[in-house]
């Protein structure tokens, strides 16, 4: 179907689709718990982070380019586990990919995880906003490089 997804993202999608609806929610919660803390060099620099306006809860992302390799970081409050889960999926699925690969990720990737029923389409939209901002940051950083 979408065999051209990067392996990391395809794996996450397959993990979700293999589960029943309530278990998908549980997996999203696990992702939420796994969102890594910001690295030292970003901790005291909120100015480097971009707010994702499409999300109902405050979530901030930053994408760094290490040559052509993408590193994504995100932070969201503990009381917003759904948003944290979405951010964590992208951090884990996108970090380490090449910039070209990230730019080629289909914009509807969040819709492929089978979360519309368990989480609701409106909420899933927040993740789409995050993905499009990641891509925009990559494009901008490349242009500046």
């Amino acid at each position, binding site marked *: 179907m979408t065999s051209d997804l990067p392996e990391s993202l395809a794996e996450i999608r397959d993990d979700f689709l293999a589960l029943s609806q309530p278990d998908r*929610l549980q997996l999203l919660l696990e992702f939420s718990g796994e969102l890594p803390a910001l690295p030292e060099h970003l901790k005291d620099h909120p100015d480097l982070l971009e707010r994702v*306006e499409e999300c109902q809860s*405050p979530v901030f992302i930053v994408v760094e380019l290490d040559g052509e390799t993408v590193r994504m970081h995100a932070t969201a409050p503990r*009381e917003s*586990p*759904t948003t944290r889960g979405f951010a964590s999926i992208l951090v884990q699925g996108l970090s380490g990919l090449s910039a070209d690969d990230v730019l080629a990720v289909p914009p509807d990737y969040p819709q492929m995880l089978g979360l519309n029923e368990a989480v*609701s389409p409106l909420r899933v939209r927040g993740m789409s906003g995050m993905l499009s901002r990641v891509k925009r940051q990559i494009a901008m950083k490349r242009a500046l490089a």
Partner: protein
Amino acid sequence: MPVATDPAAQFTGFAHPERIVSTDWLAAHLGEPGLVVVESDEDVLLYETGHIPGAVKVDWHTELNDPVTRDYIDGAGFAALVGGKGISRDSTVVIYGDKNNWWAAYALWVFTLFGHEDVRLLDGGRAKWEAEGREYTTEKAAAQAVEYPVVERDDTTIRAFKDDVLEHLGSPLIDVRSPEEFSGERTTAPAYPEEGALRGGHIPSAQNVPWAKAVADDGTFRPPVELDEVYRAGAGLAEGDPVIAYCRIGERSSHTWFVLTHLLGFENVRNYDGSWTEWGSAVRVPIVKGSEPGPVPQR
């Protein structure tokens, strides 16, 4: 068998103090037969990260809304939903949630559409319970399913549709959104996702009273005298007025509906759940832009 009400002094000035309980009261009554505690949040996973022991979860998106039509579930759906969570028709239901009880108030309003008699809000919601360092568990409540009767939803008493609002023009309307949404600068709450209204502004003659004016910094409701200041002196509501409240999708205005109905005692308050996402996209309905309420349109 209803559970005793909370006699706390801070509630005695409210019109219906039996509709609200304090965190102290809830902590003392947890586990009492006849009491079911319900958590209802904006965030669909928040309950899973920890909740009040014994509380069951009701999600507005995935459980209270009809999955196809823009409407609430019907009587059979409601009976199956709440019966499955161990709620009987005579249960005392105490609802709490995140974001100052927005979605808790919304759930309470939906319970009221089905005429559930004894449904109350936890004053201060999840944030207050947490701030006080009270007990949380991640253990999912093992609800014993019970029989709940199939009751027809009453959409005429506390719910308003677009045509009702058109009919109502000339009587008080309360727009509980942010000033930016009211004036038409934006169509969503600050920092909220676009939810697809095609026009910005407000319903003509509506008073802008952002919902949060009803709560103190700790998330609890303001005392009656301060609420009177906001709604009677500020927005000009008078005894006996029929009132319609609206926001963007009806959740923040459920909160205001609760304040006007249960705390201040207005007897004819309806929530327009279609709210701005309907009105702002409907063809040929009157709209006013800017920070003034604007005149009542001629009909």
